[in-house]
């Protein structure tokens, strides 16, 4: 039992309660664990409110055992609210990836952040801002390949309420497209 810490990717998805960040975390973990046969652990923290307040989901993905279940220093931070960014921007690995909703978050302190108008894109694509979490997953997976696009698509569709599958697929694919524009060389 002396194997070193296996490859471990730590992702933090943060926003306000009601933005669906915890659901996004669950979907990402399902994509890894159910559709790619990896190990994944999802944890969360949230305030007592049903909406508003800070809310975050954490997903740790590894091909091996995952012991400490929470993010220690994020490889990826997705922030959909100002407070979430302020709270978690300092806990990202050197060279880690920041994805922020540029219309909600002032990220000038992190010049390299990937700025995407995630909530506006969600509204323009599906007519519903509630799909912002799915757009964010598209951007995240599109840029990182932390799970395959097929796996995240399956996971999103399995979780989409009946009748919203196409809407969620459109939101996800729009996220992939944004990722490809930002990083055309890296399609996965």
């Amino acid at each position, binding site marked *: 039992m002396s194997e070193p810490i296996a490859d471990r990717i730590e992702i933090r998805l943060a926003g306000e309660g009601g933005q669906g960040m915890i659901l996004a975390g669950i979907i990402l*973990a399902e994509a890894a664990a159910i559709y790619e046969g990896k190990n994944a652990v999802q*944890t969360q923290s949230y305030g007592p409110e049903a909406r508003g307040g800070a809310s975050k989901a954490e997903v740790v993905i590894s091909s091996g055992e995952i012991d*400490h*279940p929470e993010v220690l220093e994020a490889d990826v931070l997705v922030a959909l609210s100002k407070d979430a960014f302020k709270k978690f921007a300092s806990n990202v690995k050197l060279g880690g990836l920041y994805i922020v909703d540029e219309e909600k978050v002032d990220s000038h302190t992190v010049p390299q952040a990937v700025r995407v108008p995630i909530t506006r894109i969600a509204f323009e694509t599906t007519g519903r801002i509630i799909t912002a979490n799915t757009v964010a997953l598209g951007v995240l997976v599109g840029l990182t390949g932390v799970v395959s696009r097929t796996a995240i698509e399956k996971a999103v569709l399995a979780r989409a309420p009946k009748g919203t599958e196409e809407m969620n697929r459109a939101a996800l694919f729009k996220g992939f497209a944004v990722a490809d524009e930002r990083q055309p060389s890296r399609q996965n």
Partner: protein
Amino acid sequence: MAVKLMQGNEAIAIGAVAAGCRFYAGYPITPSTEVAEVLSRELPRVGGKFIQMEDEIASMAAIIGARVGGLKSMTATSGPGFSLMQENLGYACLAEIPCVVVDVQRLGPSTGQPTAASQGDIMQARWGTHGDHPIIALSPTSVRQAFDLTVKAFDFSEKYRTPVLLMTDEIIGHMREPVELPDFATITTFQQSVTEAPAAYKAFRNTPEGVPPMAPFGVGYRYHITGLLHDEVGFPTQRLDEIDPWLERVNTKLDQYSEDIVMVEEDYQPGARLALLSYGCSARTARHALKAARAQGKKVSMLTLQTIWPFPEKQVEALGEQVDKIIVPEMNLGQLALEVERMVGRKKVRRVTRANGEMATPQMVLAALEE
């Protein structure tokens, strides 16, 4: 069964159904609410009953009553509710009524912080209800183990006629990880079998085995149940010749079965002079640190407790003889560490405590290993 991403609380609820639980009474409280939520859906499907009670005092009373009536029963709560359950928990200990109580620990004391994690009820689990009494408490380190230990909790509660506490925490309760559950047809738990004729049956017989079988009410066996000290058929008594054998039996009945009840995981390295000892969510942090330390070439052993109470005295004492220092990470100010100190002496124990709702980090444990 297929691999599924499952939450700890969900695994507890499903584990209860798989173990034969057919009655749940509870009052919802964060971070335990999902246990109730899932059972409110699952129990009616298998002919069971789900009742949302007016509070935790009544919840505990209801599960005791349900078990007396013949159904395996459970409740789930968190710190504030666990405090309210203590009186009736003592009643179940004294009247030897099997039942399972889940405590998904959150930061206390009092209302504390509902969504923050803790392992602060460990001593309350042992001594929260007044008077000397036996108790079994188990603590899972993973979602799969939450399922397995729930099944064990029902098994032990029946086998030893005692309440069993499943002491989990907000981290394990709310955490999701992939699990593949066993086929429920393969799951067995202890079934009561009363061989005596109703006229000869004594519900509290002081047998050498320590645990008299329990007959349900309503099928012809007549006995009395009370929170007073009682004789072998359950009637209150002040006679020392009746009380003494009863006290002796009840307070030692778990001792002769410790091989069965005490569950630990020993990951020992020959020659290691340092050891980690942990349980619940903190064991995950400790194991992370263990691997990191071993990767640096350090020799470190680790003892993970699944059974908290009765305390694994023999195992901890033996570990203390092998190593110079035992590091005990836990999400409280050193509750289980007290027991470790009792076994191996204070000088050998290094506590790693965090009691502000945040998990300790592997770095904190590694720092203690470096000292």
